[in-house]
Every structure is written in C-alpha cells, then in structure tokens.
C-alpha cells in the first residue's frame, strides 16, 4: 500500500499521505470509543445504582452518543463578554491536542504502532503533562471565579500526582531496561512464570501498579479526584462558561485521556497484547490485539466503578495522599526493586 502511494505521489509525499492515513485509522476509532465510553459509563453507573440508564434513543440506548453529539454540535458557543476571547477558544484545543498526540507512540500489538521510537514512554509523559494547560487557560480566560478556582485546583493536583506517576514509571523502566513501549511489553512476556499473567509487571511491582492506577484517575480529573469540576462546590469548575462544541471538546479530551491511561496501565503493568495464559495453550495462549482491548476495557470499567462508588476527596486529603503517601511508597519500592535486581533472587535477566 505504501509502495503504491509512493509510486503515484513520489517518495516523500507518499510517506506523508500514508502516515496521515494511519493517523486517521487511529483517531477515528478513538472518537468512536470515546462516544461509546460515555454510553458505557451511563449504563454501568445506572445499573450500579439500580437504574436502567439511557434506553430511549435506538435499541438499548445504542444511538444515545450520536444524539448527544448532534445536540452539542447544534448548540451555540457562548463567549463571555469579559473573557479573553483568543485564549478562551484556544483552551479546548490545548486540551484535546495532547490527548490525541500521545496516541502516536502507543503500540496496539508488537507490529501495530504508528511511531516505534526509543523514547516513547518519555514522550507520553511529556505530552500528557501538557494537557493541564487546557484546564488552566480555560479557567483563567473565562474570567469567572468558579472557573478560576477549578483551574487552580486542577493545576495543583496534576503537578502533585505527576511526580508519583513518574516514579511509578521509573520502576517499570528499571526492570525492562528500556523506554520503548514495545520492549517494555515484550520484557513481560518472558520470566520465571513463563510469560503468563504471573510474569507481568503488576505482580513484582504491585505497589507501583496501584499508585499508577490511582494517579491515573487523579490525572484525568475523574471521580473521586474531580475537585477541578466539583459540581456541588464550584458548579462545573474550569469549564463552567463553556457551551456547545467547545464544551464537547473538553469532554472528548477527558475520555480520550481516560482511554490513554487505561492503555498505558495495560501496556506497562498488565502485559499489553500478551495473553494471560501460558503460550502452550494454543489459541488461548496466543497474543493479539484482543487481549489489549480486553485489558483496556477492564481498567476503564474500574474507572467507572470508582466513580459510582467513592465520594469526592476533600482537597487537603488529595494533597496528602499525593505527597505524603504515594511519593514515599514509590520511592521505597524503586529502591526495593533496585536491590532486588542486583540480588541473586532477581526475576529480570
């Protein structure tokens, strides 16, 4: 296919068009997944609260995301008079840009990856750390006290949890000796337990796995860490002044980030596309995209479950958890892993 395009368009243009096609092939299903994740969230939380959830639009409520999308598209985008107009419109873009750009290096199987770079883990950390600008700028540009409070809360929270997240990833890259996501998954495929679910990183790095999962919830501003929105305290936080498509873009970014964190968790701790069964089990033991999709769905289900179960954290408790619990836990475990790797009991050779 690439050779065909290069034959028609010449070498460089062909490569560009081919890469653009691959980007579309990642982003389009992403948007579909985001739309149906919103439906899944409403259904799952509905059943958890003994309700039915959306069931009017389409069979079983399956067309609800489309209806929501059309509704948001047709609504007017209101610009507050006292707002900083340029920044007000730039904020949603800065929010969704990083959420999509991070997918450039996420591998779906060991062959299926847009950019298989040496520094892909570092790239994801750098890109996702930029997502906070959307929130901060939205809060400031709207010139509203509620938005501003939401932006300040979000900035403090994301900076605090990024450190714990980074340390959790340090443990992963210590045991895999690589920043390349494909190598990180492949390393989990061989080990004492013979490449089954027991040889993945979640077991030896269990404290880091838990810290990463919880920090991931905090990074994406999801309940119980959703103080940036805090409906009961500051209305809707940083996006209180947004309407129509501008609001929808924030919404899309939040869900795209959720899927990204779920994908990163499954790549780094749950063995990515590897099968949870030993390789000798035939079809069940074969690795493939289906396992990756199942793991991402499992983590996403946990996200929805948390939202239905836990009350919102108090602000000082969030800060305490991030700085006084997670960072010491990760530091200690990074040290333990270091000693473990140097000892004769090491699992990683």
């Amino acid at each position, binding site marked *: 296919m690439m050779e065909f395009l290069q034959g028609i368009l010449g070498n*460089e243009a062909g490569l560009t068009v081919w890469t653009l096609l691959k980007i579309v092939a990642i982003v389009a299903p992403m948007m579909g997944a985001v739309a149906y994740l919103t439906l899944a969230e409403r259904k799952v939380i509905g059943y958890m609260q003994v309700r039915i959830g959306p069931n009017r639009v389409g069979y079983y409520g399956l067309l609800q995301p489309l209806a929501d999308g059309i509704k948001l598209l047709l609504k007017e985008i209101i610009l507050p008079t006292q707002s900083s107009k340029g920044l007000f419109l730039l904020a949603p873009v800065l929010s969704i840009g990083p959420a999509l750009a991070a997918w450039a290096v996420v591998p779906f199987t060991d062959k299926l990856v847009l950019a298989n770079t040496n*520094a892909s883990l*570092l790239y994801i*950390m*750098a890109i996702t*750390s*930029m997502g906070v600008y959307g929130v901060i700028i939205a809060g400031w540009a709207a010139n509203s006290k509620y938005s501003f409070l939401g932006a300040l809360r979000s900035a403090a929270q994301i900076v605090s949890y990024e450190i714990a997240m980074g340390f959790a990833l340090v443990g992963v890259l210590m045991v895999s000796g690589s920043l390349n996501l494909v190598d990180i998954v492949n390393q989990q495929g061989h080990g004492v337990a013979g490449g089954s679910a027991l040889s993945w990183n979640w077991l030896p790095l269990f404290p880091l796995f838990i810290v990463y999962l919880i920090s991931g919830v905090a990074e994406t501003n999801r309940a119980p860490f959703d103080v940036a929105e805090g409906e009961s305290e500051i209305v809707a936080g940083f996006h209180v002044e947004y309407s129509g498509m501008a609001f929808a873009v924030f919404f899309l970014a939040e869900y795209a980030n959720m899927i990204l964190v779920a994908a990163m968790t499954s790549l780094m701790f749950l063995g990515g596309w590897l099968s949870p069964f030993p390789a000798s089990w035939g079809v069940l033991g074969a690795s493939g995209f289906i396992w990756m999709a199942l793991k991402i769905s499992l983590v996403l289900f946990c996200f929805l479950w948390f939202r239905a179960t836990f009350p919102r954290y108090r602000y000082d408790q969030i800060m305490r958890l991030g700085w006084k619990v997670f960072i010491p836990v990760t530091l200690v475990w990074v040290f333990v892993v270091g000693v473990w790797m140097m000892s004769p009991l090491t699992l990683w050779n």
Partner: protein
Amino acid sequence: MSFPTVVFYVLSAILIFAGLRVITAKNPVHAALYLVLAFFTSAGHWLLLESEFLAISLVLVYVGAVMVLFLFVVMMLDINFEKLREGFWKNAPLAGTVGLIMVGEMVLILMSPEASLGSYKGAAPLAADASNIRELGRLIYTTYLWPFELAAVVLLVGMVAAIALTMRKRKDTKFVNPGDQVVVRRDDRVRLVKMAAVKRSEPVAEAESADQQA
C-alpha cells in the same frame, strides 16, 4: 533547501517571535504563555539535532511542571501595569547600554577565530538504531558521576533552603491527623443517655389554654 532546514527556519521564526512577546506582552499571563511556546519551540530545535532525550525532558520539566507552577502564581497576582511602566524612560538609557554591551560580548565570542563556528560541520548523524538516552545515561553514571551527583546535591540544598525559609508554623491551622480520624469509634463521639420519659410541665399547658380562650 532541504526539509529539516525549512523546519529549522520556521521554528526559529516562532521562537524569536515568542521570545519578543514574552518581554512585550502587556498581560503577565500572556507573557508566561509565550514563554511556554518558546520552550516548546526550542524543544523542536533539539529534536532537529537528534537529541530527543533533551527535547522531551525540556517539555516534561519546563513546560509540564515549572511553567504550570509559574502560571499558577502569575494568574493570582494583581499587577498594576501603570505603576510598572512608570519609570520606563528614566531607566531606558541604562538598560539600553547594558543590552548593547551584552550583544557586543556575544558577537565578539561567536565571531572570534577560537570559537571556529565558521568551520563547524555540525554533529555527525547518528545511526538509525542509536539511542542517545542510553549513551547519556552511560556517560552521566560513569565518566561524569561526580559532577552529576554534585549538581544534584546543590539542587537539593537549594530546595531544602527554600522550604526552610518559607515554612512557618501557622497557629490557626485546623489540621487533623487522618490517622486519628480513622481510629475514632462511635463511643468516642456519641454518648447515649437513657432517661425516663418526662411529662410536659404545667405552666406551658396553661398558657396554651389561655391563648385558646382569648
């Protein structure tokens, strides 16, 4: 002109524009955002030089953490712009002189034959599978271990000093130890009192009946 050269000039133009706007923007929040743009663009320059680790760390550390905190502070400042601009023309000659001297020094250094920038060929292109993170790690933790650790200690001292200087014990803080909160049982907070039922006292009943009569 090759593609990387075009990218270089585009990035440079953006970088210079962003740098100028940092010092000319009227609103400090806009200035801080232009500084973010400047950092991001120089990360692009480093990527062109094939040093992806430095480029990504620049984005991760400066754009993702330092500038977020910077914006955090700047957004909350209440700055009086008229007052800031008051002494501009009085101080302009001095500032201009200092600026000119700095430009002169840089020109002298960059044009001097010892710097030999004219004959600099640029870094040799790396092999496709070379990982400069691995190389950097190897150098930092073997050859340059002492300077690296010293720099880390200096930063740590700076951090401890900053915290020690600004930390003060507040007297009106309502801090509660979460551990104490968790171990609390019902008996520590609630006391159930058993008492016999009491009859309503008579004067109230009399007042009520008086009301009804009236």
